């Protein structure tokens, strides 16, 4: 007899997801939440012709590219700011305040300014980077702060310069935290890109959402929104796998 206990966890997940989707379908069909909440089958209709699929596909590719670039720029900017703050202790507090202040400005307020400065083509990337950098910066900063004590002491006794200790010990030890920051920032980067597209970008999921709204094409609006979600979740999943690898490699 097999005495090993079955793990029902994944089963519950699948069941829960199916239940939620079924509820969505039922509510959408019944129409109790109005026309703006269509059934899943109606949303699937937005993908039913090649032209529609290509339209959504191009929009997704555009937004994903902007979000990816934004995440990359946000990550590089955080890395630069945190590294400078770590190496030049006198600048640490100032950089921290600067980063927090920028983060506190509502993204929506940047939009019109960016259209003038960066142009409608680049605005999604810039807004995406602005949405992404803060979680990365906070995660990387605390990763550096809570690096293990003993290797830090070792570097001090060996007379390592701050830069050498950073390159050899502190930064590698903070890599898992850095990837964690990337993972947390990914959904924000996608939303930032879509938001940036509202300010006059030629295409993208954000543009599609706005135009669907204006033309009352409710299923297409939902189809575009769901693609945003799918994009965020895939980025999050991929980065979670990277995080697991980084944790195994860089942490005891």
């Amino acid at each position, binding site marked *: 007899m097999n005495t090993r206990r079955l793990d029902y966890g994944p089963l519950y997940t699948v069941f829960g997801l199916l239940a939620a989707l079924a509820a969505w379908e039922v509510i959408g069909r019944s129409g109790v939440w109005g026309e703006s909440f269509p059934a899943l089958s109606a949303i699937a209709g937005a993908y039913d012709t090649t032209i529609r699929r290509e339209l959504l596909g191009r929009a997704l590719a555009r937004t994903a590219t902007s979000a990816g670039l934004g995440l990359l720029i946000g990550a590089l900017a955080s890395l630069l700011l945190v590294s400078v703050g770590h190496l030049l202790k006198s600048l640490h507090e100032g950089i921290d305040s600067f980063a927090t202040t920028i983060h506190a400005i509502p993204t929506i307020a940047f939009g019109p300014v960016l259209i003038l400065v960066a142009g409608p083509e680049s605005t999604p990337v810039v807004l995406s980077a602005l949405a992404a950098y803060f979680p990365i910066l906070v995660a990387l900063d605390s990763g550096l702060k809570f690096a293990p004590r003993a290797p830090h002491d070792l570097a001090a*006794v060996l007379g390592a310069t701050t830069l050498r200790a950073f390159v050899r*010990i502190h930064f590698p030890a903070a890599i898992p935290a850095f990837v964690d920051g990337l993972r947390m920032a990914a959904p924000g980067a996608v939303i930032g890109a879509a938001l940036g597209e509202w300010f006059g970008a030629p295409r993208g999921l954000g543009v599609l959402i706005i135009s669907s709204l204006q033309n009352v094409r409710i299923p297409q609006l939902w189809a575009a929104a769901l693609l945003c979600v799918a994009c965020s979740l895939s980025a999050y999943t991929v980065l979670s796998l990277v995080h697991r690898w980084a944790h195994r490699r860089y942490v005891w």
Partner: protein
Amino acid sequence: MKLAPDSVVAGHQDHGVGFVEVSGVSKTFSLNRRQNLLALDGMSFDIRKGELVAVVGPSGCGKSTLLRIIAGLETADAGSVRIGGESPATLTREHRLGVAFQDHALLPWLSVGDNIALPYRLSGVPVNRARIAQLAAMVGLSDFLHSVPRQLSGGMRQRVSIARAIVLDPVLLLLDEPFGALDLVTRRALNREMQSLWASLGTTTLLITHSVEEAVQLADRVIIMAARPGRIHAQFNVDLPRPRDRVVTDSLAFLQIVQAVSASLDDASAASGSSLEAGS
């Protein structure tokens, strides 16, 4: 026969010209606004060149603080530390100190070879691969140069840590309970191996430990500290033949010294005061 300590007066030392000279070192930590902890109170002792001195004492007697001051990781409030006539900061700058901690402090993402090479990289000295291979052989890890620390046992990790501490050929080796986290069997095996390593290197060494047997087996001299405030309670010279193999460690002379040091350690614990004094 009952062994008396060679000196019981705190601060007294009679070991001639010291290579390491610790004189009048005091250190106070503030616990909060009203309470201070006098961790070290006027510690003075010398270590001769090539000597291995072990420091034992009840927990909280400031022995790790003492090591951290000699390593330049903390500064003394009063007194001075001289190593070959120079300050710890100077030696640190010149990459001439070696250190190993109870927490082996190996970097999990580096192979054994690269962990041993770390002092080269941290100090900007070109990596000497031949020296790393030689040290790995000395600590019995030649076959593990490309393994990562996770794949090693606790005892093997500490051997890597020791190899790393001596790779730059330091003028002073500082060991802070390097075998403290190991089981007794591994610990004794390592003690035997480390003896021959030290015999071939002849590096001046300060060993912090809480094991009296380990101290007596490895050291030329054992310093016993009392706690609160941290101070020297007694010192014993260990005049046993080397290598101190099983024959020596099973001998009556060895056991008598261990007994005498243990008794002195008990006295030191009894003499240890309460930790707090009123702050200014």
